[in-house]
């Protein structure tokens, strides 16, 4: 169903977008997925860093009830680890939710995916969740549906789930060992009783694993989310990764625990810390030998609407949506044209990349100790090129260069240096924060770096580099790596790590 490109401005007009807790990944992983799965997910903004810049997704909050308690969640707010904490979504009845989805899809044609993730557990609200899915499958067959769940009531819902246009289900699996689970889940609601402790974890784990197996048997894609909780399940998640892979999950997304005291969660109030960037990366690396790992999850707000870097939720509050006249069959034609144009551009980019793939791809290859690997940070607005000013970057993409090529590691958020002011009260300055989040990197590539941050970056062992503006990210990193090799900076030795408290 390739349509001709009729709108050449599409790629410039939109700058991509994601918004959701079940989000993540990179085109690097995408290209290593089997072709039938890649075809299913290539236009999902959360599965590809590239698609992220072209397609958008949204969530509707139709599922407020939950059937378990997690120690990282405060039920007085939305779930802290599935959506940004402290922001209570506008709760919708299914009819309202559908109206809102159609309004957004008609206004933002790049919106391809609708997720239900909460604020409770979608499958603990089966009537509301499935009514929404049923109406959307009928009225907007061009929108992909996805759902995330804690898995407790998944087995009895698999049959119903398979009736709709749902191409993947996300299960949050934090453990396969009930002794670990007892430290994460204080209780579950099960067969009209509140079950606590190890017994609760045992039931939950059994249900999650059974649900995973049943979905795979039905041919529904399953992604597994895990929250990394240092000292609780950090070591254990390697085993989780192996098991869910063996059972047929296609992707594993390890997310860092969010546990600020002000969120009022058990972990927040009892001082349980989240992992550092380095710890998260080490775990993702350790799991990667067994499993396709997601590296791009931004743990977005579950009710955000719009493209990357913008939240247009305010345009679609229920009172505004009620006033909109939407002719969806007409909108669907326009959407098809926009999607075709984007797909064509993505496909041509992918083919161009494939021709270079031997140069840059190292996925799944054992590391040869020829030259040591180096982490580099990149400031980009998207499109696969270095096109962001150091001081304007609110996040950096982290890549690892080694003698085997370049691979994407993840993203790290910061406060843009130019917006941070000199200091933020008694807190750290924006530059200090950026230096901290870039810990472990030896170079930062951006379209431009100002004079002021130059010295502190160098002093921290991070070489500022503005020489590769508008170049493709992987190419530029390889050039910088080659310069380091020629300059004798890549002998096999311990990497100079700036240790940060």
């Amino acid at each position, binding site marked *: 169903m390739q349509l001709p490109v009729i709108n050449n401005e599409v790629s410039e007009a939109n700058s991509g977008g994601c918004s959701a807790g079940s989000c993540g990944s990179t085109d690097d992983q995408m290209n290593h997925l089997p072709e039938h799965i890649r075809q299913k997910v290539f236009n999902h903004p959360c599965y590809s860093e590239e698609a992220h810049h072209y397609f958008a997704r949204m969530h509707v909050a139709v599922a*407020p009830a*939950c059937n378990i*308690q997690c120690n990282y969640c405060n*039920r007085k707010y939305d779930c802290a680890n599935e959506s940004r904490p402290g922001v209570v979504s506008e709760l919708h009845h299914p009819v309202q939710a559908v109206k809102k989805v159609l309004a957004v899809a008609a206004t933002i044609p790049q919106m391809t995916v609708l997720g239900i993730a909460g604020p409770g557990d979608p499958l603990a609200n089966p009537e509301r969740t499935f009514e929404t899915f049923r109406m959307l499958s009928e009225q907007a067959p061009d929108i992909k549906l996805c759902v995330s769940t804690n898995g407790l009531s998944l087995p009895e819902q698999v049959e119903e789930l398979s009736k709709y246009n749902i191409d993947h289900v996300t299960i949050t699996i934090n453990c396969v060992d009930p002794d670990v689970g007892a430290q994460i889940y204080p209780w579950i609601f099960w067969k009209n009783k509140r079950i606590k402790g190890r017994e609760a974890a045992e039931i939950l784990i059994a249900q999650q694993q059974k649900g995973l197996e049943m979905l795979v048997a039905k041919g529904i894609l399953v992604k597994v989310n895990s929250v990394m909780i240092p000292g609780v399940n950090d070591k254990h998640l390697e085993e989780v990764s192996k098991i869910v892979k063996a059972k047929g999950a296609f992707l594993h997304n390890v997310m860092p625990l969010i546990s600020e005291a002000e969120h009022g969660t058990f972990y927040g109030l009892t001082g349980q810390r989240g992992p550092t960037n380095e710890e998260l990366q080490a775990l993702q690396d350790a799991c990667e030998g067994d499993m396709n790992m997601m590296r791009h999850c931004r743990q977005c707000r579950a009710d955000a609407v719009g493209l990357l870097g913008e939240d247009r939720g305010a345009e679609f509050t229920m009172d505004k949506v009620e006033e909109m006249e939407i002719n969806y069959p007409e909108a669907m034609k326009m959407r098809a044209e926009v999607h075709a144009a984007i797909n064509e551009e993505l496909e041509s980019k992918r083919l161009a990349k494939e021709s270079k793939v031997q140069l840059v791809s190292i996925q799944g290859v054992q590391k040869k100790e020829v030259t040591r690997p180096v982490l580099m940070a990149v400031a980009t607005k998207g499109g696969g090129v270095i096109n962001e000013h150091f001081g304007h970057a609110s996040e950096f993409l982290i890549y690892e260069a080694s003698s085997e090529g370049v691979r994407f590691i993840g993203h790290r958020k910061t406060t843009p240096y130019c917006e941070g002011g000199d200091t933020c009260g008694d807190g750290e300055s924006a530059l200090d924060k950026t230096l901290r989040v870039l810990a472990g990197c030896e170079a930062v590539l951006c379209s431009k770096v100002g004079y002021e941050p130059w010295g502190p970056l160098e002093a921290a062992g991070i070489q500022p580099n503005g020489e590769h503006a508008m170049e493709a990210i992987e190419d530029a990193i390889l050039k910088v790596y080659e310069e380091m090799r020629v300059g004798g900076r890549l002998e096999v030795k311990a990497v100079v790590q700036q240790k940060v408290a």
Partner: protein
Amino acid sequence: MALEIIELCTNCWACQPLCPSQAIFEAKPHFLIDANKCTECAGDFEDPQCATICPIEGAILNEDGEPLNPPGSLTGIPTQKLAA
């Protein structure tokens, strides 16, 4: 004999479909229990269902005005931390 939902309720809907007597109804600013209908699940379930799924400590009271889920009983958060 009836239970009561108080202002701590976050309107999460979890209890409403579980009530065997259809005593729970949506209201502003929060869900309420119709005291004439509530049986505290006697004869239907061992435990009153609303208080068994409710995630909010203190949101549901018994006839004597005591919380069925007192502070700390669901989250395990020590009470001195809750107060802070």
